[in-house]
């Protein structure tokens, strides 16, 4: 069995608030010095899902990441955690792709890998939170897609998935090969040991450029980013007076109604 896990390098969502900056001209988040990118948290859950299946049934787990400038030490963590191989899809033309184009590149990579039984992605990335790439990737590959999975099991050539829904979970089955997007409810990525970090240096790391992929022309962006800004948060505190608590409460209700909040 061969499992591909798509992992994205993102700006650290846990960076200190005071260090967070947006460049309104470039419409980009400015990563502060000394704050390395990280693996998108849901993609870490996706890798854990693949490793759990590998532990139970035996499989080759291949981590794939795409971008224009990928940080090896960050992405090598996938190998240290247990992935058998890491493929970096790195090319200047892969800079700032939207979810549809990104899914096209990832699909080309999956096709190049060959026999793939499952593809895991995070339910969404922590930078743009679109949650589109996994579904479009399935569409590109012609695979069924199950989203927001909290548990994944494989038996008799079928995948059985527990999906998180608003009031609990539902169970869905699909034939292999398929794409599953993983939720944090599946569990955190396992702890990495120092020995595993050393061993990861000997695992295969491949670099594929755009020219190495049988890539159709990338679709034009379907979304246009009009503006990017940190919303202003204002807090005004007003005390309601009244001769009695009841009168103060009545005054409060009036004020809330005036503001259109009631």
């Amino acid at each position: 069995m061969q499992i591909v896990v798509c992992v994205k390098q993102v700006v650290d969502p846990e960076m200190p608030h005071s260090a967070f900056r947006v460049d309104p001209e470039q419409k980009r988040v400015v990563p502060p010095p000394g704050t390395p990118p990280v693996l998108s948290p849901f993609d870490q859950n996706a890798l854990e899902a693949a490793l759990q299946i590998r532990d139970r049934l035996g499989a080759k787990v291949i981590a794939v990441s795409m971008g224009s400038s990928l940080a090896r030490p960050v992405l090598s963590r996938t190998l240290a955690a247990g992935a058998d191989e890491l493929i970096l899809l790195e090319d200047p033309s892969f800079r700032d792709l939207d979810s549809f184009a990104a899914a096209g590149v990832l699909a080309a990579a999956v096709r190049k890998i060959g026999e793939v039984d499952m593809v895991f992605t995070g339910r969404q990335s922590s930078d743009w939170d679109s949650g589109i790439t996994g579904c479009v990737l399935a569409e590109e590959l012609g695979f069924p897609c199950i989203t927001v999975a909290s548990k994944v099991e494989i038996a008799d050539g079928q995948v059985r998935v527990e999906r998180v829904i608003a009031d609990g979970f539902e169970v869905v089955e699909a034939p292999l090969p398929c794409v599953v997007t993983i939720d944090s409810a599946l569990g955190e990525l396992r702890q990495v040991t120092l020995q595993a970090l050393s061993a990861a240096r000997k695992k295969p790391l491949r670099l594929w450029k755009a020219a190495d992929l049988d890539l159709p022309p990338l679709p034009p962006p379907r979304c246009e980013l009009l503006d990017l800004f940190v919303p202003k948060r204002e807090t005004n505190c007003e005390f309601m007076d009244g001769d009695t608590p009841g009168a103060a409460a009545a005054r409060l209700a009036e004020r809330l109604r005036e503001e259109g909040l009631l």
Partner: protein
Amino acid sequence: MILELKDYLDDMKRCARCSLCKWPPLAQMKSWRFSNNCPSIARYNFHTYSGGGRMALGLALAEGRLDTITDELLNIVYRCTACGACDSSCKYNAELEVLWPIYSTRAHLAGMGYFLPEHSMIIDSLRKEDNTLMKPKADRGKWAEGLGVKDLSKGEKAEVVYHAGCLYCYDPELSAIARDTVLLLKQAGVDVGIRGSQETCCGSTAFQLGFQGEFIKFAESNIDDWNAAGVARVVTSCACGFGIMKSVYPLLGRQMKFEVLHITQYLDELLKQGKLRFSRSFPARVTYHDPCNLGRKSETYVPWKGTEKKVLGQFILREPEKAVSRGWNGVYEPPRDIIRSVPGIQFVEMERIMEYSWCCGAGSGVKQTMNDLALWTASERIAEAKSVGGEAIVTACAWCEQNLKEAVRQTGGNLMVYDIVELVRQAL
């Protein structure tokens, strides 16, 4: 932000490759044997390992002249204890910033996602357990069990909060020193409390490794917690913690409503006030090792912004005037005064002391990631202590003590290594 490589472009460009960063100033040099000041260049003997070489490397990085970041480059960048000796030596003659470009180079690389794999474990531990040692957060306050000391995290109030620091909390041998410290403070009548399991790392290791974002989170959280606790003084045994609280915390722009003291300063004060008195003799020939973070690196750093003008073709005049941290105002006398006041002790200085002190080798994550460099550096210090007839070496930093002890064990010597609190406890 604090660590911006581009802020140091002028310093890096102005480095004349004079190599004075590699040795203590000539006037301070006492012998050929102990004439090095930088463990990294002394051990590896290739210019890039020196302060000046690191400036050249930082400049190349800032100007985008490095196409690829190789493992070897990262090894060079992190084979440095960031002890700041290069900075003090350079400033004896010039006014170049050397240490902060080193920090900023690391922050620049970390921002690009380049660091050593071992660093990711240290940072993971910080994010999950609030310490750099991969120990459970819940166990942090266990060292103080049975002491009956106030726990500020449970709403109790105290005038002084004792911040033990990661190593003192988790290392069993060093925890005994933290317990002794609390007992000493209580004996002196100090209204002291701790933060138990809520105490967190000071962020020093993250800062020195270049993980500025992680550092800021811990620093801001500590400042806010101590302000909220209403303490007048924060006293710490951790020299790294003291150094970072004094030198870098003030740059974050948060009001610090408390005074930061290292335990050596506080014990010195209590001894001079007569609240603690020595009654026993300690007959030994003892020398003192200055921890870098307690000494030259504990001066509050003042970033300079302004204009530079070259006059007479070579002199640089700055407007406004630049405050230069030369390491002169570190904590040097309090620990020495404590040692000198112990009855029966014969205090002797080593050759490289105070702002020109030789590092123990453990700093800046080197102990955790490159123990060979850490132990070689410590063995050099042990040789220096022996050369002046020292029977014991006293220090005031958990990392220094741990590293020096390991090096003594490895080299099979008979030099005793003491934490200054151990010395005080034995002499009371």
